[in-house]
């Protein structure tokens, strides 16, 4: 029997022991162990188990917050909440910031501020209501971006586990230098058929394809699945991959990694922003090369198309 088995055995035994028998039973268990090294380790474990009962109870006070992505009414959150409540009995909060459309998602200015502030306000409220509890998050797509922005700018939001799926955060996000990095696991579930993070990365300056290719930081456990952007929310996946993390921080390994298909790889290396900028520059050059007086009508048409004059 190894020390983990002794630990589990005594933990079980402790639940049914009356207070006045705990020490004598512990002494008996220890004298049964012949190996002095193992006895020393098991004794440390037993002492901690005896004294940590309050903390173990507090450990159950674990709150899980769910944050959805864009163009979604977050129907998946109901299913995740139900499973977590049933399997682990934890408190679950569904954080919503209303419908968020593609235009506001891609717009380079200000539009993301509102959902970020709304989620931050709600997180602070949950923190106040569960002061002694641990807060873990499960985020999907744009929800991952919201949490990454909140962690970058707020020292007082302390998370326990952070589970990302379909993430649109930049691959090189600096987890190690966050002032308030999540204390438990940081899990990033990636889909090798998920093209949305790549598209978001290709046509904007603020998103990244970490939901397809993973984060570069060693703080993050990337798991690669044969899934597309919304395939994470089935009973089997939730029970297998998320419940174990939320239960005791243990990580269920994903099957062997499958290469993303050729189309995704091409898409990932398409210089989307360069093409867009080049296209605009070509139009401008074309316009500049036309004699203004001879082509006044054409210029008016182009101006109307480009800037609506």
């Amino acid at each position: 029997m190894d020390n983990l088995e002794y630990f589990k055995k005594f933990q079980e035994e402790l639940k049914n022991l009356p207070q006045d028998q705990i020490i004598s039973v512990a002494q008996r268990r220890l004298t049964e162990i012949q190996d002095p090294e193992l006895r020393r380790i098991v004794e440390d474990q037993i002492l901690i188990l005896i004294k940590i009962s309050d903390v173990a109870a507090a450990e159950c006070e674990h709150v899980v917050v769910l944050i959805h992505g864009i163009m979604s009414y977050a129907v998946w959150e109901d299913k995740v909440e139900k499973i977590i409540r049933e399997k682990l009995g934890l408190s679950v909060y569904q954080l919503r910031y209303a419908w968020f459309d593609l235009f506001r998602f891609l717009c380079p200015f200000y539009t993301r501020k509102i959902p970020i502030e709304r989620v931050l306000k709600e997180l602070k409220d949950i923190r106040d209501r569960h002061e002694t509890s641990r807060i873990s998050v499960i985020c999907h797509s744009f929800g991952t971006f919201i949490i990454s922005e909140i962690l970058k700018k707020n020292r007082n939001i302390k998370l326990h586990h952070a589970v990302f799926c379909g993430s649109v955060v930049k691959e090189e996000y600096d987890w190690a230098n966050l002032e308030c990095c999540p204390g438990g696991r940081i899990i990033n579930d990636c889909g090798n058929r998920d093209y949305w993070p790549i598209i978001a990365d290709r046509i904007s300056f603020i998103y990244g394809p970490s939901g397809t290719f993973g984060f570069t930081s060693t703080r993050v456990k990337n798991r690669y699945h044969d899934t597309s952007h919304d395939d994470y929310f089935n009973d089997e996946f939730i029970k297998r991959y998320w419940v174990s993390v939320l239960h005791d921080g243990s990580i269920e390994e994903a099957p062997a990694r499958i290469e993303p298909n050729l189309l995704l790889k091409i898409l990932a290396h398409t210089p989307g922003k360069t093409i867009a900028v080049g296209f605009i520059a070509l139009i401008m050059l074309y316009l500049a090369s036309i004699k203004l007086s001879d082509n006044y009508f054409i210029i008016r048409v182009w101006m109307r198309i480009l800037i609506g004059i």
Partner: protein
Amino acid sequence: MSSRELDRLIRKVPQEREAFRRFFEILESNTSTQPKYVTVNRLFDKLEPNSVYGLTQVITALLEAGLLEQVIRIQSPKTGGVIRDFNSIVEIPSTIHDKYSDSEIDVTPENMGVFYRLPTKQETSSHKWIIWNISKNSKKS
């Protein structure tokens, strides 16, 4: 305890690397010249291990490394005063004389305290190069 031995102990529990890092942060910021005692609960809060079992692994490694010292203390249920310290749970008798109430009391988990002594500032500085080394390695990996 050499830096290499301590490193070996930490590597035995890779999933609790963050908890070790937090412990070394506590030591680095320790300015106390008096010995400081912490409870299991306090360590659990400060180190934020993944589980209670994870905490036992971290504490076992730190005890082996000599960076923590364990004290099992029987306290008076009436006054909370120290009756006697023990090194091992096996040594604890089932009853003990409580000098504060002048009576025999049963020893139960309620009047048994388990404390961990953190190194003082001076002791930390004598271990400083080891702590610095390990802290640096754990940040790197």
